[in-house]
């Protein structure tokens, strides 16, 4: 029972490099989310998707892009990495809207350092 799987677990990038954080879920959830977690700051929503082909911005979308070509996968793209993007990134999914009492199922995160 895998749930939400994120890869890689750790990554170090140089300023200006690009990378894609992978996220896949096997629960057939329509809703998927990307959050970043900075120390003492809680979780901030970057992007979310309500189904394949539909994405929308969250609170902190600048510097990121997403796509949702399948129900299972929701990759997050960083085009020009900046030190401000050093963070722990969490992917999550939910069966219905998280606002309708549907719990978020989180992956175990990707720790990204940009130097």
């Amino acid at each position, binding site marked *: 029972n895998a749930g939400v799987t994120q890869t890689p677990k750790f990554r170090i990038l140089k300023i200006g490099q690009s990378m894609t954080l992978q996220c896949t879920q096997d629960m057939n959830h329509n809703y998927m989310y990307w959050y970043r977690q900075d120390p003492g700051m*809680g979780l901030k929503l970057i992007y979310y998707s309500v189904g394949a082909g539909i994405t929308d911005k*969250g*609170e902190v979308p600048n510097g990121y892009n997403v796509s949702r070509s399948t129900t299972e996968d929701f990759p997050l793209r960083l085009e020009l990495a900046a030190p401000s993007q050093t963070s722990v990134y*969490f992917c999550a999914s939910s069966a219905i809207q998280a*606002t309708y*009492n549907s719990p978020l199922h*989180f992956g175990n*995160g990707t720790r990204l350092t940009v130097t």
Partner: protein
Amino acid sequence: TQLLEQSPQFLSIQEGENLTVYCNSSSVFSSLQWYRQEPGEGPVLLVTVVTGGEVKKLKRLTFQFGDARKDSSLHITAAQPGDTGLYLCAGAAGSTLGRLYFGRGTQLTVWP
């Protein structure tokens, strides 16, 4: 701007003590969720409260949603080392599709 304010930010107590964590806002939420996160893992849902004044118990944990649905509290009775972790509250604000607003979290450490 932080929509949900959690306090305290850090809590370090001895096994057997009781504690309360608070989650406050000036906004009204349609529901509020509490998560616990352990190092190197994602948050895991503990409970969802929906109705103003609602109280839910999960073994030694008691969750309460304020009457006006602007605040919530988590009370732990006779804390154990296994309760150690980061506790996060998250509120669903009206019809903002898909958006849960998270507090900054309370880092709880329970010493044996």
